């Protein structure tokens, strides 16, 4: 029974170590991704596109904004599949 307790302790240690390492590793990766995004993200293009799509939506009052949302989501889903 003693060795059982020892084994459980070891498993607990591995658990703490493992979860710790996984979190540290992926947290550093978050930092790395943010760093790359800060440098290379396509920011200047984003604003005009958003404005343009908003303008389009408002310039066609006949289209239900709900419908636009549905179509946008469908397009996204389709792109996600490809």
């Amino acid at each position, binding site marked *: 029974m003693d060795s059982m307790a020892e084994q*459980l302790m070891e498993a607990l240690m591995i658990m703490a170590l493992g979860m710790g390492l996984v979190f540290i590793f992926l947290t550093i990766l978050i930092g*790395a991704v943010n760093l790359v995004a800060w440098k290379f993200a396509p920011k200047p293009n*984003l604003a005009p596109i958003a404005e343009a799509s908003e303008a389009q939506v408002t310039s066609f009052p006949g289209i239900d904004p709900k419908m636009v949302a549905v179509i946008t*989501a469908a397009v996204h889903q389709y792109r996600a599949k490809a």
Partner: protein
Amino acid sequence: MDGLIAFWAESGIANFTGPQLLMMAVGALLLYLAIARGFEPLLLLPIGFGAILANIPNGGFTEEGGLLYYAYHVGIETGVFPLLIFMGVGALTDFGALIANPKMLLLGAAAQFGIFATLLGAIALNAVPGFEFSMQDAAAIAIIGGADGPTAIFLASKLAPELLGAIAVAAYSYMALVPIIQPPIMKLLTTEAERQIKMEQLREVSKLEKVIFPLAVLGLTILFLPAATPLVGMFCLGNLMRESGVVDRLSNTAQNELINIVTIFLGLAVGSKLSADKFLQLETLGILVLGAVAFGIGTATGVLMAKVMSKLSGGKINPLIGAAGVSAVPMAARVVNKVGLQANQQNFLLMHAMGPNVAGVLGSAVAAGVLLAVLGG
């Protein structure tokens, strides 16, 4: 007359043993699940057939010189097959959703708790008479919670080859069962209002970001966790081939022909490990139970972590996407999308769930690397 007797003595009917028949029935069950029920057919079909072939008396398929023997010896004992598959998975994976919202990596990390909790569970199971899992065995079983077939096979082939058959079958069966296992846990841990949360549209990601990502992951692995380099390295190679855009031929081969060819032999080789003497044991039952527990815990911790992040972000994150943190790409993300739609007809979470989903692949590869580093010896 002598010839007839000799023929009879060599026939299957005269040589069958009970356990072999039982294992053939297991193989047939896997074939049924693959063909009639559509459970991970790409793997369960060759595994099921391999199980039947491996249990044919006097067939000699799994003895030295037999096809299945070599498939196992060359591809799985060395770890080559799961790594080639991992390269293909890398070439199939689009990290765009994750790069747009890198915080999702935390969900991929949280869901790996299922792995380590199951490690504890497998050791605790030793208290039951009839179970004697070593720490290596326990780690190989626990990785089922990573919900990643190639990772599970790779780790099992390194740490507990004698349990490989049962572990691979459990891993792929539970991946097929994701749509059944996950939704009750997800609904139990979230409120109706939380499930209705809509998430902001993801930003655009530049090509350069996508090219740098696999290199960054590889760099971090080199620095902090070299034990994970076989898995992460092949994965990043596949992903870089995809995103660089200059080697479309290689990328297409990795995504299609190569992964398909390897899948056939991987399935057969895993099936060949389903021989009666190794599979028909109490331990197999334990592995199946532990695998389901691992899956459940991983889903739960992913959702709980997403709940915390949702609170901290002021309700901008839908906690459901945490469930996609166990890898099982893309099944888990589709399940999240489905449960989200049940709560709100216009809430499409698929893209948002792909982030934690691919983060889960990285998370389980890292977890496997940790287990290898600690227990590989």
